[in-house]
């Protein structure tokens, strides 16, 4: 009986420890968000979003940084989404487990683990210097494309995988070709999952700093073309905080950054719950 009691005691202690670990993780996350939002939210007036930074960011708002972030993210998605979705279609619909698919998967896994500063070094020497695109929206956007590719591929693959095989059989039985089946049956059904992956990539692009600062620069001037250098919100936040330009503005930018990322993530989670969990 003593042995019996002790193993239930162990279980009780272990479960309490695990509850504590899990809850304190969430508590710290809430604390992080709270401490930045508490100081930052009061700064967020409409004018903060609609005015461009003045005096290095001491005054004014973050409008040009928002435009820069949006442009950079757009380039990353416009190039990255077709590449990622195409890869997923190839892996799921056009090949079985083979040497080539294993190679591609290994490449994607490795790419997913490459640190952002390495992407930054690569983007700097390849896009900025060799291809002579300078610090620009294009250089930064293409560097981000490389970074988000693994996310787009894996989420698109997951959602394509979740489509029952019978859907495809119906299309084939009606005389559909492979490509018709892919474009009219597989892709429409996989769309919510693909969109989730793209949303997560948008979130990652907005938050990325190390790779962007090396490839898109840190100019506060409003961009006029794809070849203009820009400063994204994350980079602006980093520079304000690290160089101690203005703590008030840093808090404001940080709060705006958190809000954007939060909104995008909630949308992605909603999509996952609504469309993906139900089918699998």
């Amino acid at each position, binding site marked *: 009986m003593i042995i019996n009691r002790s*193993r239930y005691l162990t*279980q009780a202690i272990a*479960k309490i420890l*695990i*509850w504590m*670990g*899990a809850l304190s*993780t969430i508590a710290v996350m809430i604390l*992080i*968000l709270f*401490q*930045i939002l508490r100081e930052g939210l009061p700064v967020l007036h409409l004018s903060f979003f609609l005015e461009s930074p003045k005096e290095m960011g001491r005054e004014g708002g973050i409008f040009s940084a928002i435009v820069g972030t949006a442009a950079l993210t757009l380039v990353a998605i416009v190039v990255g989404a077709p*590449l990622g979705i*195409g890869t997923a*279609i*190839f892996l799921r619909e*056009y090949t079985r487990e083979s040497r*080539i698919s294993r190679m591609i998967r290994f*490449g*994607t896994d*490795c*790419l997913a*683990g*490459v*640190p*952002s*500063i*390495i*992407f*930054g*070094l*690569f983007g700097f*020497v*390849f896009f900025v210097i*060799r291809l002579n695109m300078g610090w620009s929206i294009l250089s930064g956007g293409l560097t981000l494309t*490389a970074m988000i590719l693994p996310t787009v591929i894996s989420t698109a693959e997951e959602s394509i995988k979740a489509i029952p095989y019978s859907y495809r059989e119906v299309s084939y039985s009606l005389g559909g*070709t*492979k*490509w018709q089946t892919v474009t009219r049956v597989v892709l429409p059904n996989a769309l919510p999952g693909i969109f989730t992956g793209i949303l997560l990539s948008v*979130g990652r692009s907005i*938050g*990325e*700093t*190390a790779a962007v*600062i090396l490839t898109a620069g840190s100019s506060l001037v409003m961009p006029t073309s794809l070849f203009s250098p820009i400063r994204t919100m*994350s980079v602006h*936040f*980093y520079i304000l*905080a*690290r160089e101690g330009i203005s703590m008030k503005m*840093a808090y404001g930018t*940080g709060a705006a*950054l*958190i809000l954007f*990322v939060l909104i*995008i*993530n*909630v949308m*992605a*989670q909603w999509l996952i719950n609504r469309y993906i969990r139900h089918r699998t």
Partner: protein
Amino acid sequence: MQYQEKIIEKTLLLIALSSILILALITFFIFEEGIPLILKVGLKAFLLGEKWIPSKGLFGIFPMIVSSFWVTIGALLLGIPLGLACTIFLSELIPPSVGTLFRPAIQLLAAIPSVIYGFWGLIVLVPLIRNHLGGPGLSILAGSLVLGFMILPTIITISEDALKALPPSYKAGALALGATHWQTIWRVLIPAARSGIVASVILGMGRAIGETMAMIMILGNAVKLPASFFDSARTLTTNIGIEMGYASGGHRQALFATGIVLFFIIMALNTLAVFLSKRRAH
């Protein structure tokens, strides 16, 4: 029609090779920029040299390698127990009502930009450490604590997948033999999912070694061999991140060479993780 289908298939194959192409380009350009300097300075002097004075042509990154490992080990000391607790909580203990909130919260942890973590470390942890534990505050300890949190999503999602992949009979069998729920978790489920959990920790380690911006803000940027967790430090990544903005010539090459070392460490860890998760599949 047949012809068109062939073209589509080949196009998709080309697209699918893009990630390998990107990886190859990254490798090529980092090496092309960095290797000349390693050859000039000498591999041993570069890796084991303790002096980093670019103006004098001294490029030794040994203190940074050591600091990178200190910070990473510190992060794992926090990240492994906390990550395991969250994983077990998610897959075994969680009441459904909490589950709908807890899982998105973990996803959010992954979505918070690293500059936000860095800023929080700077304004909250650093003063806390400086006032209560001494030292400059900007320290390996502060960096490790923040990194420990940043690697949690990696550890949790991958090790949860490993637990989920186990046949339900493992749990049923253990419970049927009279084991408590906890004994089942600790003696059966966790050991059975071991290789996946180890893979998750290795990937978390890669994430920790590769983190840059948060570490620039927290570590305090001192190029010296760390003597304790309260010391300031400069890691491989922060070395690149801090100096890339103004470096040129041999100095810039030295930063790319630092990138090569980082790249090797990350690739070794990735390969190990892929190998481990393969073994689980068989």
